[in-house]
């Protein structure tokens, strides 16, 4: 039972990072829960990093399995761009000045989910006609560019205040000045989706053998895909609305998890992906607010800085050159 030991080990590492996340920051504070800085700012922030890191990672895992493509992921296939479009539409088209009200925030999340699902559906539709995974990636990249161009047009016509809040949102951050009550709604939904993913482990394993074999074993492939898309859409939409488009974590983490345990069966890959995702989310957040830095580094810059080299490593490792 090497795997259970690894699971315990990495869980302990996660707890260690959680503690580190509470203590470190632009101001070092002692580990004391009565400290206002800790419970008002650091706890929500580290929890967001954990939930969103794990959530975006498991979304990447779902996508890699349903597309049977090691390079699938929310940011690569344009899903994050879809959410961005939803948010841009929300911010500019509805001329909402502030994005911190409950209604507007939830509206934006809903728009982001719609955007994410629209792109996922489109990519899935295209994937039926595309045999080579490289072609699919090119289509996904182009969808990303296409959607970005629409976002740019929105920004061009939008007013300055909106543009500023939109650009700031786009840099990405786990630090949200939202009341904890509202944040916990996000956590709850993300948690429910994560639990739902565990119930998909058998169909996902069957899909690893390819659609043809899965069907001969009685799997309703279409239904499984729809459920998976729904889950990916909700995860990516919510997380993107909350933290901005997080680059590369979704594609990189499932590979780290699989390589760590040398297994692809979802019974193991799902929990490891969740925990590794949470760890990486925390690490990125800790780097983003290294002690000594005045402000915060943009989260997106940090995740790309760490994630992009991992993706290159995957390409070389899978001999895709």
């Amino acid at each position, binding site marked *: 039972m090497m795997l259970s030991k690894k699971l315990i080990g990495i869980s302990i590492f996660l707890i260690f990072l959680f503690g580190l996340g509470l203590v470190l920051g632009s101001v070092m504070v002692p580990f004391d829960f009565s400290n206002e800085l800790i419970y008002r700012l650091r706890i929500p922030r580290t929890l967001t990093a954990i939930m969103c890191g794990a959530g975006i990672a498991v979304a990447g895992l779902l996508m890699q399995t349903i597309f049977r493509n090691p390079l699938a992921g929310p940011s690569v296939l344009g899903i994050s761009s879809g959410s961005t479009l939803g948010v841009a539409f929300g911010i500019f088209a509805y001329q909402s000045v502030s994005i911190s009200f409950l209604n507007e925030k939830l509206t934006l999340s809903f728009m982001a989910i719609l955007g994410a699902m629209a792109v996922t559906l489109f990519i899935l539709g295209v994937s039926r006609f595309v045999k080579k995974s490289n072609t699919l990636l090119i289509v996904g990249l182009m969808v990303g560019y296409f959607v970005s161009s629409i976002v740019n047009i929105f920004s061009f016509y939008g007013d300055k205040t909106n543009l500023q809040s939109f650009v700031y949102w786009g840099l990405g951050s786990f630090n949200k000045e939202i009341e904890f009550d509202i944040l916990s709604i996000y956590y709850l939904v993300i948690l429910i989706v994560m639990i739902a993913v565990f119930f998909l*482990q058998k169909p996902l*394993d*069957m899909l690893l053998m390819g659609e043809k*074999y899965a*069907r*001969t074993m009685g799997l309703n492939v279409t239904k499984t895909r729809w459920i998976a898309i729904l889950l990916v859409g909700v995860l990516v939409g919510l997380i993107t609305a909350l933290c901005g488009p997080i680059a590369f974590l979704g594609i990189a983490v499932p590979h780290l998890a*699989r390589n760590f345990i040398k297994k*692809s069966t979802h*019974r193991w890959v799902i929990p490891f992906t969740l925990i590794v995702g949470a760890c990486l989310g925390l690490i990125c957040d800790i780097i983003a607010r290294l002690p000594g830095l005045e402000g915060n580094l943009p989260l997106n810059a940090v995740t790309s800085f760490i994630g992009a080299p991992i993706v290159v490593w995957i390409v070389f490792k899978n001999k895709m050159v």
Partner: protein
Amino acid sequence: MEQQSTLILSNLAIGYGSDTILAKEINLIAQEGELISIMGLNGTGKTSLFKTILSQIPCLAGSVSTGNSELKRHELISAVFTERVSIFGFTVTELIAQGRAPHTNIFGKLSSHDKRLIQEQIEALDLSQIADSQINSLSDGQFQKVMIARALAQETPIMLLDEPAAFLDVKNRRIIYKLLSYLAKEKKKTILVSTHDVGFAQEYCQKAWVIQNQKIGEMDPKKISESFFD
């Protein structure tokens, strides 16, 4: 049990929509213990016939029925295809265990009965040496054996194999052929194999279903020669 392994094609038409009918008026029966080769030139409809039997595409006319209409298609028929699938992080045993998926609970938990069955297939197909090897490290021949073991673990009376030996060398081909012949004779499976290998049909099969001019007819495989389709 005898009935279950019977596959009846009655007045069947196959293809992709009424514009592209590949073969029609097919009336054939496959019975327990028969190893049947399905032969025909490329594009004549071998794979479409399989897809129709597996109900992955609809019958254009007529019907495919089995001895037991209460069981679902995947409980009666398992399949092995030509192309090799690349799966990272699966061992031979884990892949064979996938064959039990139709029988397990929502989390795919294997019962002790499932585990015993998987072990039986590993021993029957002489895979013990590589039981813990990674799928991607296997040779093409070993891979197809594992896929056959997986189909056997599915415990279906009928098996379909779509050119299972197309990418294999002479030695591995013979291993697969002997195995199929053994499964039909000793395990009383009904096995349909699409193939271009005339030698296989002549040497191992009791029947040949030949697709020609939009018809599928039953023939004595001994009467088929290399020049048959000229």
